[in-house]
């Protein structure tokens, strides 16, 4: 049992290593020629108007929460797919139940108009 986890651990280790190497080399060896103009926020060539931190409307937060909700739902599919053979019919029914519950939540959000922008 331990062996499979070792495989996943190796996989995670290598990916983070590659990520760090790629960015790390850039930051260590790259020239730092920061200038005040380069640091300005990019606003298609013009000067930004008003303060940078502005009040964000709540709808953005709502969409972010909905996304996280259904994203985690898909994360649960991964381990289920790994052990799909051993679980047999029980696993299948269990997962469909899980999906059904989340679908109820989805329809509720849909009908409440959370997906519409206004």
């Amino acid at each position: 049992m331990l062996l499979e986890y070792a495989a996943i651990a190796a996989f995670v280790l290598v990916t983070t290593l590659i990520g760090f190497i790629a960015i790390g080399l850039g930051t260590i060896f790259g020239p730092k020629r920061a200038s005040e103009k380069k640091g300005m926020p990019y606003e298609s060539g013009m000067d930004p108007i008003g303060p940078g931190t502005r009040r964000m409307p709540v709808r953005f937060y709502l969409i972010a929460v909905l996304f996280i909700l259904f994203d985690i739902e898909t994360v649960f599919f991964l381990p289920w797919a790994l052990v799909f053979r051993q679980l047999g019919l029980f696993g299948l029914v269990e997962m469909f139940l899980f999906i059904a519950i989340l679908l109820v939540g989805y329809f509720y959000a849909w009908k409440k108009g959370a997906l519409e922008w206004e």
Partner: protein
Amino acid sequence: MGIEQKLGNLGVATTTLEQAVAWSRTNAMWPMLFGLACCAIEMMSAQAAHYDMSRFGMELMRPSPRQSDLMIVAGRVTRKMAPVLRRLYDQMPEPKWVISMGDCASCGGVFNNYAIVQGVDEVVPVDVYVAGCPPRPEALIHGVLRLYEKVQAMKFAEVKS
């Protein structure tokens, strides 16, 4: 790059590193989506399927200066646009090059009047000038290849810190 100042000239080590750096720069140089006037239409034709600038590593026209290495000034630069052009040039990350496409960008071209900056080299330092009004897509691609020659000939020792 930082390493250039530290290494200086180590003979065979830096030359292979230079070739590796030059290879990586010239095969994935992303231009900034910065079309001003008529030359922009020829630039779009050069980017489209028939002339296909992606064969030379220019797969994507990045709209934001943060992700682009090359600024193709395609069109006439007016007095009102010059500060914007300078701002976009400043906001590009360091190894950056400029191609001034067309006569209007290179020397004011047909328009010698109050509204046009006579040559974009008054605003940003230019590496390659492409002549033509508008230059044919082949002329632009020729300009890109000349720029690649210039990038490949760059030595580490010359790079200022």
